[in-house]
């Protein structure tokens, strides 16, 4: 297993370089110059930041300065090399927007995104596994059909629409006021509040965003669960267990369930990059300052260092996720062996 691990790790390196190179090229070959954009009054510059020609000289100087400061005046391969070199020292550079280190920007937003996504993954599993079990054990019954239908209807509902509906109807507009319409804490929030009150406030604010982030996942995961279980139920050992006279509960929950959880574990590892990727849509609807929002704004503003940092981190997590799922699979499934057969 040791040599297999080394092999896998070594393979990660070219893959990682490839991913960053492609990201870098896509970002740079897309039209739009951050220095010009900045000179034009930033992203939301009203109208067009037009400047008189004789004054244009000053702006051109500034743009040239920025380009030099950002290293944009160098040829692309050199820029990429510099970026790679900095990466080895874990230096992601500074944002073009306000000269703050990119690492700080990510650090500032990371906890929110992780919290949101961990809760959401938890919720998806919490709902989808029982749903899948029910569907499998009652396959082709009315109940199975209904839950499947329900899960797929949810899957088909766009989050933009459902999220907006939730805000309009549940968040204190002209209808009910059950949840806050966005943000992370109440107006009168105070760090001096007792723990339970702070937790309550958090839960109250995170409920709808987590739900919105999760509901579409119910369908997919419960289907995996269902098919996994059905496949197991058809196996000979189930027949054997049943003929031995084991009660149905033990057959299902001890033998079948454990085996059919294997794919669920590997899917979990695949969700890892999503942990920091965040969700642009949900974060935007609920005004949550997470990484999705950061990335979206950075792309629009051509804030290359921020974009590249986010690409890199999520590429790394994706690669690690794949590696992890392979390893997990080996751990839960004794039929898989690494390298030479033992």
């Amino acid at each position, binding site marked *: 297993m040791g040599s297999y691990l080394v092999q896998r790790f070594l393979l990660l390196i070219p893959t990682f370089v490839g991913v960053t190179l492609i990201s870098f090229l896509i970002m740079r070959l897309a039209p739009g110059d951050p220095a010009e954009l900045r000179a034009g009054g930033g992203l939301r510059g009203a*109208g067009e930041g037009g400047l008189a020609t004789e004054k244009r000289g000053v702006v051109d100087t500034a743009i040239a300065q920025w380009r030099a400061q950002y290293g944009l005046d160098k040829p692309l391969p050199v820029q990429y090399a510099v970026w790679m070199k900095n990466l080895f020292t874990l230096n992601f550079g500074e944002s073009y927007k306000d000269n703050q280190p990119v690492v700080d920007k990510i650090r500032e937003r990371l906890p929110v995104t992780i919290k949101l996504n961990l809760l959401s993954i938890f919720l998806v599993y919490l709902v989808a596994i029982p749903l899948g079990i029910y569907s499998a054990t009652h396959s082709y019954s009315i109940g199975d059909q209904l839950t499947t239908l329900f899960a797929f209807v949810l899957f088909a509902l766009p989050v933009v629409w459902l999220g907006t509906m939730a805000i309009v109807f549940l968040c204190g507009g002209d209808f009910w006021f059950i949840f806050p319409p966005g943000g992370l804490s109440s107006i009168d929030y105070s760090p001096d509040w007792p723990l339970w009150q702070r937790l309550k406030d958090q839960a109250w604010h995170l409920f709808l965003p987590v739900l919105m982030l999760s509901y579409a996942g119910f369908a997919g995961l419960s289907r995996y669960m269902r098919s996994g279980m059905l496949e197991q139920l058809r196996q000979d050992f189930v027949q054997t267990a049943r003929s031995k006279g084991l009660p149905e509960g033990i057959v299902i929950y001890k033998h079948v369930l454990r085996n059919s959880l294997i794919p669920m574990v590997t899917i979990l590892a695949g969700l890892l990059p999503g942990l920091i990727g965040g969700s642009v849509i949900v974060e935007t609807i609920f005004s949550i300052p997470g990484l999705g929002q950061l990335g979206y704004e950075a792309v629009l503003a051509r804030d290359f260092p921020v974009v590249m940092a986010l690409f890199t981190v999520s590429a790394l997590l994706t690669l690690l996720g794949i590696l992890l799922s392979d390893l997990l699979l080996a751990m839960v499934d004794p039929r898989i062996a690494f390298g030479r057969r033992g």
Partner: protein
Amino acid sequence: MMAVRKLALVALLVTVAVGPASRSFGQAQPTPVTGDWLLAHILSDPEQLNPLTSNDAGASAILGYIVQTLLTRDPRTLELKPLLAEARPTIAADKLTYTFKIRKDAHFQDGRKLTGEDVLFSVKAIKNPLVNAPFARVYYESVTDAQLVDEHTIRFSIKEPYFLNETMLGGIEVLPRHYYDPQNLMKDVGIKDLADPAKLSDNAKKFAEQFNKNYSRNPMGSGPYKFQAWKTGQEVELVRDPKYWGIGKPGIDQAYFDRHRYRVINNPDAALTSLKSGSLDTMGLQPLQHMQQTGGDRFKKDFEKHEYFSPNYSYIGWNNDHPIFSDKRVRKAMTHLTDRKQMVKTILFNLGQVVDGPIYFHRPEYDKSLASIPYDPKKALELLAEAGWKDSDGDGILDKTIDGKKVPFRFEIKFNSGNTTRKSVALALQDELKKHGIGATVRELDWTVFLSEIKGRKYDAMILGWAMSVTEPDAYQVWHSSQAANKGSNHIAYKNPRVDKILEEYRREFDPKKRIELYREFQKILHDDQPYTFLFTPKSISAVSRRFRGVEVLPIGGLRPLDWWTPAGAQKYGSKPSNN
């Protein structure tokens, strides 16, 4: 633009009154009291809060409460009046020297006295070529020198006479030197030393580096509100400075709310819901929200809606170098084919007004005698025929022989993606033109791409907008022929020698009456040339909580939250101490 923003407290809120403007003047007003909070809405974080290097409108609004200028403008009359200066400056006869006396009683939010040294430092900071403030620097380029006469007197030397120089100098935002330059690195650097970036001293370089990097999120000044906190993506919070130097001083702005909290809500639907549920006190409403979602009795009980013009206009720019649009008869025909009244009705939901020139219609320079060009397809076709456009080959598209080649009347309208108003205008025009044998295609482009194509004049027609000045306008930058070169703002390449002359003379004219005359003529020429098809000026609508007093649309337009207050009995947040 920077010059406007410099007189921030007035300028950013200035728009024009309609509807309930003439409310209760002269009536005895109760005395305002302090206390309560203002929860206002912003769509996104400011990019940064450095008074010099930030360049976005969101930051200007907030910084206007924190940092002050030498002069300001009366929010009602727009007259220049002193703020940190004792009086308006003494101007030398040759109009090249301006001397300001600075108030002796002003101090910064940390208690340190504000002196001429701070003013001098602020100018040097702007002029330092390595400071990320090229936009501000552009406006102060004509400042050739500044000297302290004594601790509270500063004298500026100016390159050439220009009637807006007083506004420009008066708009200097006075930054505390001891805070923004604690090591006093700029002490021995003179204004003249800053002219050449190549010869910059090490201290000036070091200052610029620190200034660009360390002051993005912690502004400080002498204004009525202090910066308190900025939670990224959540809110920016200001608190009233209880030791503000201007408290109780006549003619100086007072502040009443204990707190201003700018809540970042990037989804307009969520913002409206927040407003209704009480977690916002005021927000700008979108037209649809105004028409359909804010008419209920409950809403009317809690909020009042205020309607006013936003001083900007949209236009269709015709590339004046283009073989088709270089003929002014064609441009006129295009305006006749643009049903602007209908567009205001259907695209702006009647929240706007058709405009026919670049001068704001509430300015004295505005020429009311010019008739608006009506929607008139018949007249348009006559003009086109006169210009030689007819369907000679019967293919349904007008054509004309230009330079021996038959050219069909086909062109492309470009605009930036995401702007639904511009898209609707383009589509409506396309539809209309089709009926008359003109083939227009529309093209949406990403903002940055759009900008570079406009600047490179790679377009036939495009839809854009300009802000209009609510104070004395200066149209030089947009209309002077010299600005057509080198990616200047005259990106349609409009060239008229008489207009050039007017624009130049106007800038040197210190007599307001003569300036008005000059600009009346300028507007007549533009009207005849039709370089743009001017479209409309939109109206804005804001909802404001009814618990506030002092909320009024100013005679010259806009709302001014600095004047708002809540009677003691109605205060929602009282005078609670800070939680942060």
